[in-house]
């Protein structure tokens, strides 16, 4: 399982997960959830936007279990 984790104001949160590594630069996600996830291995960084506020892109991290 792959997890998309964003970190804001020092607090990380898991906002999405997927069986495959679907995460790429420029994608949009709902950034408000706090999903349960089990991140163990860092995969990569991607620049995404939040659908609620697409004006300011953010850097998110992809992990896998």
């Amino acid at each position, binding site marked *: 399982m792959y997890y998309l984790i964003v*970190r*804001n*104001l*020092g*607090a990380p*949160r898991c906002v*999405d997960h997927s069986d495959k590594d679907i995460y790429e630069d420029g994608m949009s996600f709902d*950034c*408000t*959830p*706090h*999903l*349960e996830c089990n991140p163990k291995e860092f995969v990569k960084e991607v620049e995404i936007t*939040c659908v*609620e*506020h697409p*004006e*300011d892109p*953010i*850097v998110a991290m992809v992990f896998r279990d």
Partner: protein
Amino acid sequence: MKKTAFLVPGTILLFVLSGCTTVKRFKTAAYKGKDNELVEVELFNARLSAEPVAGGEKNVWTLSANAQTRLIQILDERYPDNEQFISALTDNYGPEDLRDTDYTLKDLRMVFTIRKSRDYALLNKSGGRFSPADRIEYLELSLEIPESSRLEFHEWNRYVTEYGAIHIADVSFSRNLDLTLEGNMGGPDLESGASLGRNERQEISQRYLKLNGSISDRRMVIEAEGTREVDLTGNVTADVSLRFDGFPELVMVPVFVSDEDGQRILAGLDFQNVLVPAMENAPDTIHADLRMRYIYRHVADGWRTFGEWDDRVEYYQGMQVQKVPLFLKKDYLPEFYCIGTDQTGKDALKLHKSPEKEYLLQFRNYREAVMFLEWLQVYPDMQYDSLLIGGYEVLYEGEPLTPASLPWNSLRVLPVF
């Protein structure tokens, strides 16, 4: 012959008299070079606050006259409890304040202190660069925010010096102002020396100051020039609006009603989308680069008189660069609260609808979080298998919250950030 005899001395006298007029800026002036030790600048106060929003408060006192009359008729047989009656009158019935939804806009007031080096030990010394008549003639302050802070200047509200103030209300606005200000440099009148039998009276009743300001995303620049006898030593206050990059958050607003017994019942949770500052980490202090350039007017001779016309002026220019603390973490972090235990990290309550819809149960202020926790602890129906609010299941440590699993004694209100 007679004409020539009068013409030559008369012309000389005219030149002498016009040469001694006290409306001159100086007697002589020369540029002497750079000296970065003559003036100091300090940002001694920077205060950040939520940007004020035009008040939308509506209560009974803001009703129209007709509505007030109608209300009085309705309340003719009013509720007997005075306390509740007065409480109802002072309730706010207006829309939610916009400040509650956007935490990225902040007002910052900065007070810069400009001071001269007053080295009285060098008075009357030929190499000295201080006299009581010295003044800072020109000042440029610039403040630059590093890009890493994801913060930018949004709007410039006000700029105040010891002598005047200008209001600038546009992002890229820049203009020069000549401010005419009442003032007086030690008496309304000055009399010049009367060595040639000429008595000139000059009223010093006005001071002149030029102010100039510009602002861009990362940089603000303020300039001041004292064009006549104005020393720019003192405080400069700049009010600016700042905007952080935004990051979305979802906060829950509990809505309570009272039952017939006066017991507070949770009617539901309103989900509210808000924007908070977007910063990966929350640094304890956000710094900015402060740069000051100045022109220092040193009076090498002629400083015994208040007037500047007899001054032998030496100009120095200087610059200072320093990193200044702009504001602290507590100033920009939103004060959201959640409910959980702090024994094993932050195990906070969550709301769960589906694997993709799971949210932290967070409140926009301490009061609402406390009210929810109090309601949770006296929740009347303790026989539930899981607690549902508006179709969302309440989770604790990833499991549905039940009376058995609820850690009654250790649940508390915790700050989210």
